Every structure is written in structure tokens, then in C-alpha cells.
């Protein structure tokens, strides 16, 4: 096992984050704080409680998840796409490091950044909003698991993309709409019957729901189903990444 190789990639990616701290950390934290102000304090005060939870507090898990998913995908996709774009990928491909080790380096770095941003948002919001975490272990587990899963997804996007536009394509046109419609800002039970049923097709619903459950004990869907769905997506991404490296898809000519 080339542990030093994994650490080299991890360290390189984390250094990049600390070099661009305003973009990597300050920007997502500020965006989320704006959501809290607009949807929580301004509009939220007119909404009242949802499932027995104050709306501003209700928003916290959804907004953290929204940030986590976007950050994981963008960090990992940029992390692997940029060496392809700049040509420095040659060094990774000619090093004695296996595909799994390469993936570990990039994905763990992207996931670490997301977890860090998620925790900063959580801690910051705790100063202004009343937050309860009924299941802290599960909350942390979900946070890490979803960061890893979506970092893997982002890694796949980064390999598939052959220009900067494609890196934004799936996050902008698929992931963000699904997250917004996945219960980040509302409970699925608030929707009319038809839209409720349609929402259950959206995989993000299960992720947000289980994460919110770890905070307040309320869930739109069964938690076991949510965890299973997350694991299924994780395994699916791993299988796809293995195939990419086995075939050299979009990496080797």
C-alpha cells in the first residue's frame, strides 16, 4: 500500500484549500449564513414550527446538507480535473500508485474539506439558532458518509469532464435542483399528495431526511431506507470509479 502516495495527494489538495481559504471555506459559509438570514430570520419568522421544530432550526440540517453535497462534488471534480487540464496528471499516472490509492487521496481530501465546512456552518449557526442534536454519532456519521459519497461522485464528474463547463453541468442542472426539491427548506409532508409521491423518487430526499432525523428525531422517510440508499449510491460510485481506472476511460489514450 502506497500510504505516502495517498498522503502526498491528500496533503497537496488540503494545501490548495488553505491557499484559497476565502474561496474554499469563507465563501460557502457566507452563502449559508445568507440563507439563514433570508429564509430563517426574515421569511422563517412568518412560517412557524415544522414537525414541532422552529423553522430556522429546521433549516440547519438541510442547509448543511445542501452545502456538503455541492462542496463535495465541486472539490473532488476540480481536484482531479485540474491536473488533467494542466497536464500534471502525467505524474500521478506514472507513479507507483494504484487507482484505489489515487481515489482515496483525492476523495478523502475533498470529503475532509466538506466535513470541515459543514462543521463550521454548524458551529456558527449554533451561536445564533437553537440547535438540538439528538443523535450526534449518527449526525457525524451521515456527515462523513455523504461527504465521501458525493466526493466520489464529483471525482467521476471530474474524470468525465473535458472542459470547465462540463464540471458545472451536473451540479447545476441536476444536483442543485434535486437538493432544493429534496426538502432542504421544507418537510415533504407539507407538499400535496402528488408532489409528495414524486419527491420520493428524488434520492436527495432520503439523505436530507436521515440527516435531519439525527438532529430532531423527525424523518420524512424510514431512516434505515435512507442509510441503505446512501450506501447503495456509495457502492455504485466505487464500482464506476474502478471501471474508469480499469479501462483508462478519459484518462489514458
Amino acid at each position, binding site marked *: 500500500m*502506497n500510504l505516502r502516495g495517498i498522503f502526498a495527494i491528500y496533503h497537496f489538495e488540503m494545501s490548495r484549500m488553505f491557499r484559497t481559504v476565502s474561496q474554499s471555506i469563507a465563501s460557502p459559509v457566507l452563502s449559508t449564513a445568507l440563507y439563514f438570514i433570508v429564509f430563517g430570520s426574515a421569511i422563517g419568522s412568518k412560517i412557524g414550527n415544522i414537525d414541532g421544530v422552529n423553522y430556522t432550526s429546521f433549516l440547519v440540517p438541510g442547509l448543511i446538507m445542501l452545502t456538503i453535497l455541492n462542496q463535495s462534488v465541486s472539490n473532488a471534480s476540480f481536484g482531479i480535473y485540474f491536473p488533467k487540464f494542466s497536464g*500534471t496528471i502525467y505524474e500521478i499516472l506514472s507513479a507507483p500508485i494504484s487507482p484505489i490509492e489515487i481515489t482515496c487521496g483525492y476523495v478523502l481530501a475533498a470529503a475532509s474539506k466538506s466535513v470541515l465546512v459543514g462543521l463550521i456552518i454548524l458551529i456558527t449557526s449554533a451561536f445564533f439558532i437553537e440547535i438540538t442534536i439528538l443523535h450526534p454519532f449518527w449526525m457525524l456519521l451521515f456527515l462523513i458518509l455523504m461527504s465521501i459519497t458525493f466526493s466520489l461522485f464529483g471525482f467521476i464528474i471530474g474524470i468525465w469532464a473535458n472542459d470547465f463547463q462540463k464540471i458545472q453541468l451536473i451540479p447545476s442542472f441536476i444536483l442543485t435542483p434535486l437538493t432544493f426539491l429534496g426538502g432542504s427548506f421544507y418537510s415533504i409532508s407539507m407538499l400535496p399528495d402528488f408532489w409528495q409521491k414524486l419527491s420520493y423518487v428524488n434520492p436527495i430526499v432520503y439523505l436530507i431526511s436521515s440527516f435531519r432525523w439525527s438532529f430532531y428525531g423527525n424523518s420524512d422517510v424510514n431512516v434505515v431506507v435512507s442509510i441503505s440508499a446512501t450506501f447503495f449510491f456509495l457502492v455504485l460510485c466505487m464500482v464506476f470509479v474502478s471501471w474508469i481506472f480499469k479501462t483508462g476511460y478519459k484518462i489514458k489514450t
Partner: protein
Amino acid sequence: MIAIDIKNLNKSYENGLKALKNINLSVRSGEIFALLGPNGAGKSTLINIICGISKKTSGKVTIFGKDNILDYKFTRSKIGLVPQEIATDSFEKVINTLKFSRGLFNKVPSYEYLSFILKSLNLVTKKNNQIRTLSGGMKRRVMIAKALSHEPKILFLDEPTAGVDVNLRKTLWNFLNKLKKNGVTIFLTTHYIEEAENIADRIGIINNGEILITENKKKLIEKLGEKKIIITINSSHNKLSYITKKYQLKKNKNKLSYIYNSKKNIDLSASLLSDLVKSSVKIDDIEIEKSNLEEIFLNMVEK
């Protein structure tokens, strides 16, 4: 000991282009091998396949006896690669990018060794600079330093001196000779015939994906080169026309040229001089010109 062994290597692209055609090549440990060829001849493709960056269509590549796909961790750990294009992490500091490269190859961090490399390539004063602030030549040195950061046994240099000034080119040649003395095998591709002529032990010529020849540099020049003897005479003589005909000399005013090609004829230069002396032809000057690698190269690829 054979460092690189390539057997029946082929590479075809999906569009039908055959980039490499049945390449067979061996490079001995500790030698400097230069692969010459025009643009698009297949030089970079060959290096990329050996190093694991491109996929082969068929054939076998072994590094110190191990297959470069089945035992890729072993083979790649022995190889350092300097690609043709300058590709660096612009915002990274020089020393950090070397640490990264060493780590990728699973080597224990060694500031002492990296300092030695920086010193050897005159990069010590630039070690804390971001790479983007360096000149093109300096960036090229950083790429060489990165390739050497894990103490490779084989160094691949894909046109290392393209666009580099004469001074740096000569510094690099000296450095490569030092590496050779330390037992590093060097495989370089180049456009500059002068480069191959100066530093290579053996030379290969590739064109249209085919290796045309691989030979010891001196032997190659002897074998395929021509020797021209230009004799300046001071007096004319009635036997001169006989000698000119006998040795198929070219006459230009008072200069007689005798061309000898080892592939085509026997060296009669000694006999020619003897005949001229016997005929009392007064000789003012004798010049010997040997063809250089450039002429041999052009002869082969332009056929």
C-alpha cells in the same frame, strides 16, 4: 543488465492511426540512449507507454525484467519522467512540489536529498518561489528535479532541451553525464542531433512509428557515414586523369575529392595517396571530413 526491454510493441488509435509498429528495443543499464525522430514519429508515444501514461495495443515492455503492467508498482518506482510539455502546479512552491513527487513514489521524506537535487540543478535560491514566477528554463529544471526526487534508476527525458538556451542545454548535458556515472540509465528523445551526438552512448532512429536503426553512436557514424578526403594539389600531371578515373575522384580546380562509404566500397585512401606520391603529384593539403549524425539522420528519414 537490460534496463528496458521492448518486444513487438504496437500502438494503434481508434481512428486507425498506427503510432508504433512492432517496436523491438533494449536499453542497457547505465547507458544514455537517444531516440531521434521527426515530429510525430512516435517518440513520445513510446515513452508514454513505457511509463504507464498511454495504453499499448500489443507487445510487451519490461523494466529490469518485470512487466510494466503486471508489476507496475515495481517498474514505475524505478522510473523518473520528464515530459515534453512543461506541466507544473503553478501556485505550488518549488520545494513543496518536490516533496509531493517524492511522496507519490512512496519514498521517505528526505530534505537532504531534495537539497542535493536543488543544488545540482541550480535551484537552491528558487526553492521557496511559486513555480509560476519562474522562467521557462527554470520550470524545465523543476520538472527534471521532480523526476529525480524519488531517486529513479531510469530517467526518461522527452525532448528535455526544447526551447532551452545553449547555456542551460550544456549544463543539462553535464548533469546527465553525472547521473550516468551514478548508474542512472537515461532514455532521451530529441530533435537536436547535436545533443545525441554529444551525450548518447547509443542512438535509435524512429520514423513513422518504426525503429529504423539502433546502434552505438560511433559505430553508427562509422557504418553509415561517409568519409571525404579532399586533396589540394599544386601541380598537374599527365597521370592525374588516370588516377582520377581509377579512384572516381571529383575534381574542382586544384582540389580532388575522394568519397568513401563503408557500405558501398573499400577504403582506398591509402592506395590513392601512394599513387599520387609515386606519380610525383605535389600535394599542398589534405583534409578529411566525416559525415555527422545529422546527415545520417536526414538520409534515413528522408528515404
